[in-house]
């Protein structure tokens, strides 16, 4: 099911028009894109291609950049890990954004020190998710109030992340011990059971969670055979005829 990177099912028409025309460079469209980001945050959708266009506008017109929108875009990218979208967004941010805080905090003139701090924090989260250190992800998320502020605008952040984690688990797991899964999903008790049974559709048997078989987690061995076509030999055969005998 090929889905092109620039395709998003419910992209509004006016956004599509801007993206396909030169207006994507027009600083006046920033506000349109910004509203679209807010809409995505509320409606739990993601349109990375449009969001990257907004970051590009910020890249060209730094004075228009809104810190909050930037972090919201990054947080939205987290909710669709392990896709490369978070990295692609980072590539469009100013080059100094990832330099360690010690260097940038020494600069009172650097107006966006809070932004680079926020971006670096989100990058930590992204790396934890990417490296499948899920329990550490949840403890890190709880460890700092700044995180709560950063994810506040994104509706259902924790649930979206849980669904993504469950998805990656279902790719490689058939059975998993309940305590492990609890720490990976960052939830316990009734909420945990409801999520596992209701949202994921997995079975709970004693202290073991069973993930139904799917294409990814059955791990069946196969033998790939070479597909030989007659056309591959056309030159050889032709030569055979051409050759004076």
């Amino acid at each position, binding site marked *: *099911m*090929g889905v*092109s*990177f*620039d395709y998003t099912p419910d992209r509004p028409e006016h956004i599509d028009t801007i993206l396909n025309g*030169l207006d994507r*460079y027009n600083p006046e469209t920033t506000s349109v894109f910004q509203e679209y980001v807010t809409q995505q945050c509320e409606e739990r959708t993601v349109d990375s*291609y449009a969001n*990257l266009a907004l970051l*590009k506008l910020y890249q*060209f017109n730094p004075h228009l950049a809104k810190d909050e929108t930037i972090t919201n875009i990054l947080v939205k990218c987290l909710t669709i890990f*392990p896709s*490369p979208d978070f*990295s*692609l967004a980072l*590539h*469009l*941010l*100013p*080059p*100094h*954004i*990832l330099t360690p805080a010690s260097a*940038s905090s*020494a*600069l009172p003139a*650097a107006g966006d020190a809070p932004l680079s701090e926020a971006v670096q924090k989100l*990058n930590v989260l*992204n*790396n934890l998710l*990417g*490296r*499948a*250190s899920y329990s550490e992800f949840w403890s890190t998320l709880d460890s700092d109030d700044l995180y709560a502020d950063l994810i506040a605008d994104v509706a259902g952040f924790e649930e979206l992340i849980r669904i993504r984690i469950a998805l*990656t*688990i279902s*790719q*490689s*797991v*058939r*059975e*998993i*011990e309940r305590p*492990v899964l609890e720490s990976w999903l960052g939830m316990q008790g009734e909420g945990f059971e409801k999520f596992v049974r209701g949202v994921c559709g997995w079975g709970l048997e004693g202290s*073991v969670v069973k993930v139904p078989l799917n294409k*990814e987690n*059955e*791990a*069946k*061995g*196969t*033998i*790939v055979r*070479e597909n030989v076509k007659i056309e*591959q*030999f056309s*030159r*050889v055969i032709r*030569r055979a005829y051409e*050759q004076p005998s």
Partner: protein
Amino acid sequence: MSVLQNGAAPLRAMDDESDVEEEALVADYREQVQYEGMEELEQVTSLTMAQQTDDIQSRLAAAAQPLDFSAPLEVKFASYDNYCSLFHFILNSDGPVDLEPPSYYWAWDVIDEFIYQFNSFCSYRNRVARQGSNEEDIQILREAPNTWGCYSVLNVLYSLIQRSQINEQLAAMKRNEDPMAVAGDYGSKPLYRMLGYFSIIGLLRVHCLLGDFSLALKTLDDIELNKKAMFARVMAAHFTTYYYVGFSYMMMRRYADAIRMFSHILIYVSRTKNFQKNAQYDSISKKNDQMYALIAICVAFHPTRLDDTIHTALREKYGDQLVKLQRGGPESLPIFEELFRSSCPKFISPTPPDFDNPELNVDPLEHHLAIFMDEVKTNMWSPTVKSYLRLYTTMDLKKLAGFLEVEPEKLRGWLLVNKQRSRQTRWTDNGLLDGEIVTSSDLDYAMQGDLIHISEAKVGRKLVDWYLRNLARTY
């Protein structure tokens, strides 16, 4: 000097074997070309507008001439003004300008040189601001924030594309219709058509330099990548296109597609290198090596069978590094970094630097490298995990963790990561951003509690290729 030169017309026929002599000749010839280029450029700046229009052919030729790398700022500014007035003349005269391009590769040379100068100007400006030592240059650059500005460069490229209706023409060609029907007054002229066409390739490059890899690939929507494409007629254009497309794929973590791109062009180069013993080939060989380095990186992320020619050359050039990359772990990190640094494009930042806070002007390369290295670190245990799993059909997780001397929890994470990363989007049809998610690894596994079930997709021996090659040899 990394300009790909097409202007280097055939050198004197020489069939001596001495490489040294040949190189000296090439260098000598290059110097001459550059020297002339500079002279012409200065002449042009001293002429008045009226005189210039008289001598338009020489201006066209001048625009395609490479600028000396160490040219002083005034020359860089003057060169920018020259391009502006030339493009203004071409784009904004009353109706299409009636001119024949001096040669079929002229349009490529102009766009190539235009972007090259933009690229090196931005790098230079950033470096001056970072070092903060050259007060004189800082002052000049501070006062001219719009010279070689991103918006004006993009404006030129997009205007050339729109004027020539090149995207419409290419789309018509795809549908097997006559492109002339949609070309319009401008697009039907070779000058505009070729400038428009190579501006698309130019955009690919600029987007990539700015770190916008998805847009870079999107730009090529209407161009079909095959040997019949117009860019294939100009070697440097052919080469550049594949380098930037491959690089963008790599940054989007589509390693299979990146390898496909690099392999295609490297095989092409290795097959044609015998006819290209000239300056053009000389400058290509550097990019050639860069692409081998990039292939090494991609193969480390996505182990796969390479074409034999590529494989042999890769082992020759980067044999030691490749072994280390494929082994993974922390020891591989410096190698990834080294290869990335030496083979990535010269990234730029689109806005003028902050001259008052030199510390803020980080080299864009460092930024992109840092993001890339995070991905490398995410992946670095995959080779270790895979090498162990290959030995078993079932394995206890805690036992394996003991072998590897890590916490079982860590190992679970590695297993999940490796599985995720072996799923990749791969191109099948339509635009370059299109693709299907495929499992790229031959090793598959699933965890049942602490028990890991492992299976391998065995590939039957591929004999046809071998058979055909040997047949061809004996015939």
